[in-house]
C-alpha cells in the first residue's frame, strides 16, 4: 500500500503534501461561492477536507520520524525533484537575476509544525461546528478559517523567504478578517471592540512585517536568492570570507528579520495586538495562539536561524526574556478568562524566543516548546471557549465559579492543559520548559545566563500562580454568574479530549538523551540535528534545575490555592500588591503610551502635513499664484474701458511715446555724430 509506505518518494509525497496544502484553499473557494446554499452551510465539507489534510500531515510526520529513527537524512526540496512553480522572473541589470521559483521544503521542523497545524486546525473546525452554531456569518467563518489554515500550511512548506513572506502576509489578512468576525455583526454587543481589535492586530503585525520585508531585501540584495538553502550556504560563505567574523550588515538584516517575529509572535514591544485578538471567536483565538500566527514567528526564527549573527541572537534572547516576565506579571492581574490565556501565550512565546536566541540546543528546546505549547494552549483555549459557551458568553472569571460540577469534561481537560502549561512532571510542558532552562547555560549574552535562569524560574512560578488562580476562580467555589451553566455538546468536548491526550504525551518525543540510562529518547532533537545543527551538543537533563523549577511551580500553585480556594469572586491580590497591581493591571501603560503615539504624535504629524498642504502649498502658493494672475488681469482690464475718448487718448499717448523714442534714437545718434564731428 503506497499510502502506508513511510519511505519518502518525492514524486508521490510532494503531490500529497501539496494536496494537503490546497485542500483548505479549494474548500475556501467552494465555501465562499456556494457555501451558504449547502446543507448545514457547508461546515461538513470543510471539516472533512481538513480531516483529509490532517491525515496527510500526520502521515508526513511519521515519515519523518521513521526516517530519522533509521538515521537517514530527512531534508527534501521539491525543486530537486523538478516540482516548482516559476512565479516571477525578470533579469536585473548587472545585479544578477531575479528569479523566484516556489517549491516545497520538507524537513523535520516543517514536518512537526505541519502536523501540529493539521491536527489543531481540524479540531478547531470540529469544535466550531458546535461553538459557532447560529452565527450570522457561519459559512463565512468556516471559509475564512480554512484559508487561515491554508496560509499557515503554505508558510510551513515554503522553501524560500519570499513565499514564506507571502503566506505570512496572507495570514495577517486572515487574522484581520477573523478577529473582526463580529466587527459588523449587529447581534454582537462588542461590535466596536472587534472593529478596533482587528485593525490594531493588522497594523501592529504589519510593522513587524515591514521589518521582515526590509531584512529580506537586504539578504536578497547581497545574496541574490530567496531560497533558504541558498541563503544558509551564502551566509556560511560570507562569514568565512569575512575571516569568521559576521559582517555588520548581516546583524542589521538579522535584526530586521527578527522584527518580523516580534510582530507576529507578539514579542515586546509589539505584543499589544495579541490580547485584543480575543475579540474574535474563541476557536480563532485557539488557532492564533496555538497553531498559526504566533507559531509562524517562532518558525521564522527556526528557518532563518543560520542567518542570524551572535549579536542578533543576543537581542533575541533579551527581547524574549523581557517578554516572558513582563507578560507573566500582567497575566496575574487579568480577570478575563481568555485574557489570562492570551498573556500566558505571550509569556510562553517569550520563553521560546529567548531559548532560540541561546542557539544550539536552545533552538531545539524553543521549537520543541512551540510544538508542546501548541497542543496544550489549543486545549486551554478551546476549554475557555467551552466555558464561555456554557456560561452564555460570560468571559469575566469573577462571574463564573462552580463549573467543576457542571462541566465535568471541560474541567478535566482544562486541568490537563493547566498541568501541562505549569509544567508538572512528566507531561508536555515539563520537558520542553526544562530544556529551555537548561539551554540558558549556553547563552552568549553579556549579562550571562544566571539572570536568564532566575527569570525563567520566576516566570515558571508566576505561570503556575496565574493558571491556578484562573482554575480556582472559574471552576472552584459556587457559581456566581447569571443563568445555569451547561456542559457543551460532544462535538465540542471531543476535540478537547483529543488535545488533552496530546498534551499529556507530546512531551515524550523530546526527552533529553541519557535521562533514562543510555536510551536514545530525544527524537525531536534527533531530527533537528539532521538539519543544520550538526556538531552542537545535545540537550541533557539538568536535574537540579528541573527540581528547582518544579518546586517553584508548586509554590505558585500553593500560593494560588491559598488565595483563591473557595473564591467568592473577590480577588485579594489588588490589596496585597497595591501600586504594583495598578501598573500590571494597566498593562504597564504601554497600550496607553501607544495610544498616545498614534492619537497625538502620528495624528499630529499628519495634521502638520495637512496644514502644510492646505495653507502653504494650496493656499500659499497655488491659490495666491492664481490670485496674482487674476489681480493682474483685473488691473489690465481697466484699460479696456470701452470709452472711445480713452482709447484715442491712449492711442495718441502711445504714438507720442513711439515718436519720441524714434526721435531720441535718431537725435542721439546724430548728436553723437555731431559731437564726433565737432572734435
Amino acid at each position, binding site marked *: 500500500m503506497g499510502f502506508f509506505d513511510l519511505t519518502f518518494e518525492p514524486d508521490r509525497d510532494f503531490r500529497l503534501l501539496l494536496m494537503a496544502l490546497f485542500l483548505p484553499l479549494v474548500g475556501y473557494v467552494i465555501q465562499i461561492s456556494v457555501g451558504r446554499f449547502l446543507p448545514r452551510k457547508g461546515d461538513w465539507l470543510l471539516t472533512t477536507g481538513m480531516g483529509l489534510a490532517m491525515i496527510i500531515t500526520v502521515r508526513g510526520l511519521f515519515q519523518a520520524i521513521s526516517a530519522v529513527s533509521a538515521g537517514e537524512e530527512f531534508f527534501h526540496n521539491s525543486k530537486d525533484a523538478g516540482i*516548482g512553480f*516559476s*512565479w*516571477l*522572473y*525578470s*533579469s*536585473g*541589470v548587472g*545585479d*544578477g*537575476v*531575479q*528569479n523566484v*521559483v516556489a517549491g516545497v521544503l520538507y524537513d523535520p521542523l516543517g514536518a512537526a509544525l505541519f502536523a501540529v497545524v493539521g491536527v489543531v486546525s481540524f479540531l478547531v473546525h470540529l469544535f466550531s461546528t458546535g461553538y459557532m452554531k447560529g452565527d450570522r456569518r457561519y459559512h463565512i467563518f468556516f471559509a475564512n478559517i480554512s484559508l487561515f489554515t491554508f496560509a499557515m500550511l503554505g508558510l510551513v512548506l515554503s522553501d524560500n523567504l*519570499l513565499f514564506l513572506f*507571502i*503566506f505570512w*502576509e*496572507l495570514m*495577517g*489578512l486572515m487574522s*484581520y*478578517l477573523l478577529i*473582526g468576525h463580529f*466587527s*459588523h*455583526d*449587529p447581534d454582537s454587543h462588542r*461590535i*466596536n471592540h*472587534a*472593529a*478596533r481589535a*482587528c*485593525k490594531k492586530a*493588522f*497594523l501592529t503585525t*504589519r*510593522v513587524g512585517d*515591514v521589518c521582515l*520585508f*526590509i531584512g529580506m*531585501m537586504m539578504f*536578497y*540584495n547581497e545574496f541574490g*536568492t530567496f531560497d533558504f538553502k541558498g541563503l544558509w550556504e551564502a551566509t556560511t560563505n560570507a562569514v568565512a570570507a569575512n575571516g569568521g567574523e559576521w559582517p555588520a550588515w548581516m546583524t542589521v538584516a538579522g535584526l530586521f528579520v527578527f522584527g518580523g517575529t516580534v510582530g507576529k509572535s507578539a514579542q515586546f514591544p509589539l505584543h499589544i495586538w495579541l490580547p485584543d485578538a480575543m475579540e474574535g471567536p474563541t476557536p480563532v483565538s485557539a488557532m492564533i495562539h496555538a497553531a498559526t500566527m504566533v507559531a509562524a514567528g517562532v518558525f521564522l526564527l527556526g528557518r532563518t536561524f543560520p542567518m542570524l549573527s551572535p549579536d542578533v541572537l543576543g537581542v533575541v534572547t533579551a527581547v524574549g526574556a523581557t517578554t516572558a516576565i513582563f507578560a507573566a506579571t500582567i497575566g496575574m492581574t487579568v480577570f478575563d478568562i481568555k485574557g489570562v490565556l492570551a498573556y500566558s501565550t505571550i509569556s510562553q512565546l517569550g520563553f521560546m524566543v529567548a531559548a532560540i536566541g541561546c542557539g544550539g540546543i536552545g533552538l531545539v528546546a524553543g521549537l520543541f516548546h512551540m510544538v508542546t505549547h501548541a497542543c496544550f494552549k489549543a486545549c486551554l483555549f478551546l476549554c475557555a471557549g467551552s466555558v464561555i459557551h456554557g456560561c452564555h458568553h460570560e468571559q469575566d472569571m469573577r462571574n463564573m465559579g462552580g463549573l467543576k460540577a457542571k462541566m465535568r469534561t471541560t474541567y478535566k481537560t482544562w486541568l490537563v492543559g493547566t498541568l501541562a502549561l505549569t509544567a508538572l512532571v512528566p507531561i508536555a510542558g515539563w520537558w520542553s520548559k526544562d530544556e529551555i532552562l537548561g539551554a540558558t547555560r549556553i547563552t552568549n549574552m553579556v549579562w550571562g545566563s544566571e539572570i536568564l535562569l532566575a527569570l525563567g524560574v520566576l516566570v515558571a512560578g508566576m505561570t503556575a500562580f496565574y493558571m491556578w488562580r484562573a482554575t480556582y476562580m472559574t471552576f472552584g467555589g459556587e457559581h456566581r454568574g447569571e443563568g445555569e451553566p451547561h456542559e457543551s455538546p460532544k462535538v465540542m468536548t471531543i476535540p478537547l479530549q483529543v488535545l488533552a491526550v496530546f498534551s499529556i504525551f507530546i512531551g515524550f518525543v523530546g526527552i533529553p538523551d541519557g535521562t533514562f540510562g543510555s536510551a536514545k529518547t530525544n527524537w525531536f532533537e534527533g531530527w533537528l540535528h539532521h538539519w543544520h545543527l550538526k556538531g552542537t551538543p545535545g540537550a541533557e537533563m539538568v536535574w537540579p534545575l528541573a527540581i528547582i523549577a518544579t518546586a517553584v511551580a508548586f509554590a505558585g500553585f500553593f500560593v494560588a490555592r491559598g488565595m483563591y480556594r473557595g473564591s467568592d469572586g473577590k480577588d485579594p491580590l489588588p490589596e496585597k500588591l497595591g501600586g504594583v497591581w495598578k501598573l500590571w493591571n494597566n498593562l504597564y501603560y504601554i497600550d496607553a503610551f501607544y495610544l498616545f503615539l498614534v492619537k497625538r504624535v*502620528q*495624528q499630529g*504629524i*499628519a*495634521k502638520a*502635513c*495637512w496644514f502644510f*498642504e492646505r495653507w502653504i*502649498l*494650496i493656499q500659499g*502658493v*497655488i491659490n495666491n499664484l*492664481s490670485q496674482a494672475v487674476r489681480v493682474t488681469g483685473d488691473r489690465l482690464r481697466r484699460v479696456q474701458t470701452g470709452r472711445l475718448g480713452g482709447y484715442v487718448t491712449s492711442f495718441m499717448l502711445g504714438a507720442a511715446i513711439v515718436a519720441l523714442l524714434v526721435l531720441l534714437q535718431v537725435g542721439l545718434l546724430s548728436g553723437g555724430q555731431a559731437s564726433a564731428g565737432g572734435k
Partner: protein
Amino acid sequence: MNPLLLCLIAPAAATLAIFFVDAKEKKTIRVIATVATGVSLAMAILMFIGFGDYSYEHAATAAEFTANAGEADEHVYKYGIATDWVEELGLSFRLGVDGMGLAMVLLTSLIIFAGVMVSYTIQSRVKEYYICLLALVTGVFGVFASLDLFFYYFFYELAVIPMFLLIGIWGSTTKTVDQYYATMKLVLLLSAGAVMALIGLIAVYGDAGTFDMVRIEEHGFSSGFQMLWFPVIFLGFAALVPMWPLHSWSPAGHASAPAAVSMLHAGVLMKLGAFGILRIACLYFPEAAAVYLPYVGILCCFNIVYGGLVAVSQRDMKLIIGYSSSSHMGYVLLGVASASLIGIEGAVFLMFAHGVMTALTFALIGWFYDQTHTRMLDDLGGMMKVMPFCGTLFIIASMASAGLPGFANFVSELMVIIGAWSSRDILWYGIPAVFAVWGLVITGVYLLRAVKDAWFGDLPERWKNLRDQRTLAEKAPYLILTGVLLLFGFWPQPMLDVVHQGAKPLVVRLDEGRATHEAARTAREGGTKAVQLPAGGAQGTALADTALAGTALADTDSTSEGSR
C-alpha cells in the same frame, strides 16, 4: 483590421454615433457606449494574448535564465499602422505599441469598460456625459498608441478638455471640495504641465527634424541638449503624475469628479504622465536621465510619505484615496528613478495594478455616495451589514493597496523596491526604498481606518435602507476589476513578459546613457589629470597648476575686456 486602430476608433466612432441619438434614449446611448468600450477591451485582450515573441525564453532555473537573458533588446513596436497626413510638415498618423504601451492600453480599456457600466447610475444629461467620457478615453488611447509627436500631443489635449466638462457638470461639491475650484485647478495645472512638455517637444522636433517618434528615438541628441531639455519635459509630465509638490490638483480633482471620471482620472490619466516620462524623457535623453533621476528618487519619498500622512488626516473618503493615489505614484516614480530593469518593469506593472485598484475603490465609493450623498467617515458606519458585496470588495481593494500578496500591487511594489534597493546606492535609492516600505504601513493606517469607520461598527439608523449591488450586471464591473487584480497577483508573469518587451530596450538605452555620462565625466577629470601628469613631481605640478590658473585668469580677463 488593425486591432490597435480598432481599439482607438471604437470609442471615437461611438462618440460620433451618440451625437445622433436622441437624448431621451438613455438606454441606446448606454448600449452604444458599452459595446464600443467592449470592442476596445476585446481588442486589447487580443493584442495582449497575441503579443508573443518575448525577448527571452521561459527558464526553469536561474542558470538557464541568465543564459537567455540579455538578448534581443531592439525596440519593436507592434500592431503598427501609418498614414501620411500633411506631407509638407512631415506629419503622419502613426500608431503602434511596445510592451509598456500595450499594458497601458489594456489598463485603459479595462477601466473604461468598467467605468461605462458603473456610470449607468448617472441620470442627468446622459448623452453629453457619454460623449465627454468617450472623447476622453479616445484621447487616452491615442496617447498610449501614438508614434507621432504631433498626434501624441493632440490626443493628450483631447483627454484634458472633456475632463473639465465632466467634473464641472457631473461632479459634486461637498464641504471639503468645491467642484468648480477643483475643475479649474485641475485643468490649469494640467495645461501648464502640457505646455511645458509642449515646449520641450517642439525643441525635440527642432533638433531631430521629424515628428516620427521611432526616428527621433534613433536620433542621438547631444548631451548638452539633453541636459537642457530633460528637466523641462520631465517636469511637464511630472505635473501629471503628479510628483510632489505639483500634486495638489489631483486629490481635489478625484474628490469632486463623478465615479467613472475618478476611475479614469486616477486609473489612467495619472499614468499618462509616468508613461510620458518613460516614453519620451527617459528614452530620448538617457544621458540626462542618469544625472537627474537620482533627485527624482529623493522627491518621490515626499510623494510616498507626505502623501500618505496627508491621507491619514483626511476624513473625506475620496480625498483619502486621492492622496493615497499621489502617494502610490511615488512608487512608480521610484521605480522609474531606479533606472534598473526590474524597477522600471515594476513601475509599469504598478501603473497597471494601481490603476485597476484605485478604479475599483472609486467605483465602490461612487456606489454608496450615490445613495448616502456623504463620504465623510464621521457620517458613515456599519455599512457592511447592508452592503456586504460592496464592503467586501472595498476591503479587498484596501488590502491590495496596502501591498498584500495575492494582488498585482504586491508584485509590482516588490519589484520597484528591489529595483531601488539593488542599485546599492544607499543614499540615493536605499533610503527612498526604506521610506517606500514604510509607506506601506502608512497605507494600512489610513485605509484600515476608513474600512473600520465606514464599514464596521454600528449602523446608523438612516443607512438601514442602503442598496447593495444585487444583479450580476451591477456586480460585473467590480468583479472584473477585482478579478484582474487577483489574476495578475497570482500569475504576474504574462504581464511582466509583455512589459519586459518595452522595458528592456529602454533600460539598455538608459545604461548606455549612464555609461556615456560616466565616460564623459571620467574623461573630464582624467583630462585635468592628463594635463597635470606630464609636469612631473609634486612641486612641478603645483607650479604648472598656478601657471595654468594664471593663464586661465588672464584668458578670462582678456576675453571680458575684448567683449567690452
